[in-house]
């Protein structure tokens, strides 16, 4: 039991990562894939933050009454990772909106069926000089 508790964060992080990864890789709805991607990325943060915690420590803001502080480095890294994640999500969502307009569907099977190579190109989505 102690072993499980000692590594509980790691095991749950693995479970969450895999759940998110499954949702992303699975062929289905484009928005759901993005939600799955978001869950996958967020659970990786646990992998960084859990080892940073020190039992009996506090947040790494220096104040006179505390002596033990948790590790500040993963906090910095994860802040960056969160921001990168939301930028990716915003781009992904913008693509989904455009795909919906161009294909009329956001189910991956439909979209791939409609865009099989060799099929006649339908309606420029971006057009060169065309207005």
């Amino acid at each position, binding site marked *: 039991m102690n072993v499980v508790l*000692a*590594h509980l*964060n*790691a*095991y*749950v992080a693995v479970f*969450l*990562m*895999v*759940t998110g*990864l499954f949702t992303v*890789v*699975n*062929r289905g*709805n484009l*928005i*759901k894939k*993005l*939600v*799955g991607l*978001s*869950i996958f990325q*967020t659970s990786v*943060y646990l992998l960084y*933050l*859990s*080892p940073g*915690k*020190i*039992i*009996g420590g506090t*947040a*790494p*803001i*220096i*104040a006179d009454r505390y002596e033990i*502080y*948790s*590790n*500040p*480095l*993963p906090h*910095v890294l994860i*802040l*960056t990772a*969160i*921001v*990168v994640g939301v*930028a*990716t*999500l*915003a*781009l992904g*969502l*913008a693509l*989904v*909106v*455009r795909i919906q307009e161009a294909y009329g569907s*956001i189910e991956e099977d439909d979209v791939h069926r409609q865009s099989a190579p060799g099929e006649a190109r339908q309606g420029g989505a971006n057009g060169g000089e065309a*207005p």
Partner: protein
Amino acid sequence: MTGVTSESIVLFVNTALLLLMCAAALGVVRLRNLFAVVMLGGVYSFLMASLMVALDAVDVGMTETAVGAGISVVLMLSVLGLTKTREAAPRHRPLVALVVSAVVAVSLLYASGDLPPFGDPAAPAHQHVAPEYLARAPVETGAPNIVTAVLASYRGYDTLGETAVILTGGIGVLVLLLGARRRRGGVRQGGAGESPEGTGAPMLRDTVILRVGAKILLPFILLFALYVQFHGDFGPGGGFQAGVAAATGVVLYALVFGVASAQRVAPVRVVLVMVPLGVLIYAGTGLAGMLAGGNYLDYSVLAHDPVHGQHWGIFAVESGVFVTVSGTMLAIFYAFAGRRQAREEEGAGR
């Protein structure tokens, strides 16, 4: 039961939050109503943020709340307004996904075999660079919040990259969503008396509680954003959290009173300049350090003594981050909202 120690409280909270997150994640996998999926995603982010606070990562928890449980949910809901809200029934067995997930799970579990136990202060991660940060940062940068000191100064270059990532994402969304419906180019400039229906918020304006509540909250939200921005050296906070909070305030206003009203407060042209401007401020601070004789992003040379230089440097770069983050979040919101308005105007015109 022997005395409840702080350690056992930490473990209890930890475990409870983890189990709830598992439940939320499973819900995302199983449910096909996309609205529910998006909301569960937001719930998951909020639980993660709470867990982060429990793990002493307060800056990160604040950012995750603002970004993951706030902005992300708003964006996904606005996209749902533009697409269908139900996922189609699955047509085939998810074999590939299951195999990939299984392999990844096994590799990670194998890796966790020799990871140090949770909360152990003797772990290798705590021996090398971290104690140096804790010892040196308050003295060299004058900022008690070590995370801000590391983020803005020691690893400030990473943060410049991060701000560039936001720039990339923001401009990417603008490129994809602006103008291409080919009716009128540019972000929709809403008319004066326009109803908020264009933002997918029918009749919100007529709900007294929301109207009054939004008007009361908005100044506090903006004040909070400024507080978080300037107090980031001394408490949890900094450019990102402040930028997202400020943008959220304007988004709230837009949701209740219409995008047109919000664009009178934060015009599109100003927002479009803010997005790249913050990166220029940040990179410019680095160049200033170079011109003053130091390396790129060396703040110690910016003032008469190194600690003051660090103060100014951190202030400048955090301001740059604030400008780009708030500008980008707003620009992205305008882009999505504008798309919806364009589509509705097209539909009405037929």
